[in-house]
């Protein structure tokens, strides 16, 4: 007899015999259905995690609009409309590229910083009140790689890809 719970504890691929009951046709169909369900659940879960991260970052970005001069207790300028607009565009592209940020923060430099972390690998995208944008990838000890980019969708998407490759390496 095939029991749904028995699928749960097994690896996701392979052919299984349950007790002495071996019915390849039934087994394969059920197995395929089970795998499809699991994959859908994993996809939905990853999708929701990314969406939650982006939503949280958007929420934080909205909150930065009320910051005033000296918000960082060290005389820092608040992010202005230009920095926030570019950061919002970056979030849209991150959502499209399915790369969730670890944190969005106002930057003491005057702008918005979007951080990424994957184990010891980290990355940043910062948008500044001047309209400048930088991206950076780094690890624990090596020299950070920092580059300036323009605020076009193509340049931002290209940098997101570089960050993705760095984080996945």
């Amino acid at each position, binding site marked *: 007899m095939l029991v749904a719970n028995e699928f749960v504890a097994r690896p996701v691929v392979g052919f299984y015999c349950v007790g002495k009951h071996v019915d390849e046709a039934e087994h394969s169909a059920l197995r395929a259905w089970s795998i499809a369900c699991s994959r859908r659940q994993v996809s939905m879960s990853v999708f929701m995690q990314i969406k939650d991260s982006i939503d949280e970052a958007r929420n934080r970005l909205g*909150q*930065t609009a*009320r*910051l005033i001069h000296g*918000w*960082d*207790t*060290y*005389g*820092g300028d608040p992010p202005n409309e230009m920095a926030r607009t570019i950061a919002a565009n970056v979030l849209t592209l991150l959502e499209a590229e399915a790369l969730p940020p*670890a*944190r969005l*923060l*106002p*930057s*003491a*430099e*005057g702008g918005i*910083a979007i*951080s990424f*972390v994957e184990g010891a690998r*980290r990355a*940043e995208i*910062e948008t*500044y009140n001047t309209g*400048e944008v*930088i991206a*950076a990838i*780094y690890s*624990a000890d090596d*020299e*950070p790689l*920092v*580059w*300036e980019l323009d605020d076009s969708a193509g340049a931002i998407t290209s940098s997101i890809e570089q960050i993705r490759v760095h984080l996945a390496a």
Partner: protein
Amino acid sequence: MYISPPDRPEHMYRRGRAVQPEFSPWELLYFRYGVDEFVDGALAPAAIHLPQSVNRGEFSQPADVLFHPEGKYNGLGVVEFRVEEIPPTSEPGAGIPCKFFMKHLPEEDNYSHSEIWADQVPETGRFWKPGRTARAAFRIKLCRRIRAERIKIQAVKNKDQV
């Protein structure tokens, strides 16, 4: 959570003391941070800018950076790092060469007040702001050394909540 005392600690006042330009590489520096400025165990580069104010450990206690007569910094935290952990120079090829160093700039009610400065190489004797990428690389290199174990007083608030 840190609660500021009503009166400024006596040791914070300058009381005519001279500028002490020399910093030991091992001297501790104290910096005020907000709870969200720690990202996955390290201070976020977004927390730092140039010039960056800190208190030098030679003449202060960690809690001094949170002192405010009206308790404005209550709930923020303090991290420490050493002078030797400040990257000494910009990387070759990252624009105009520059160096980073400590400058003791005492205030009448905060003798230990100091700043992380930058200047061109060769020196001009004034603060000089490096380019964007050099500044970003500097902030990243400093902040990745400031990990959770360097927290002296734990933050429970964000800076925009004070």
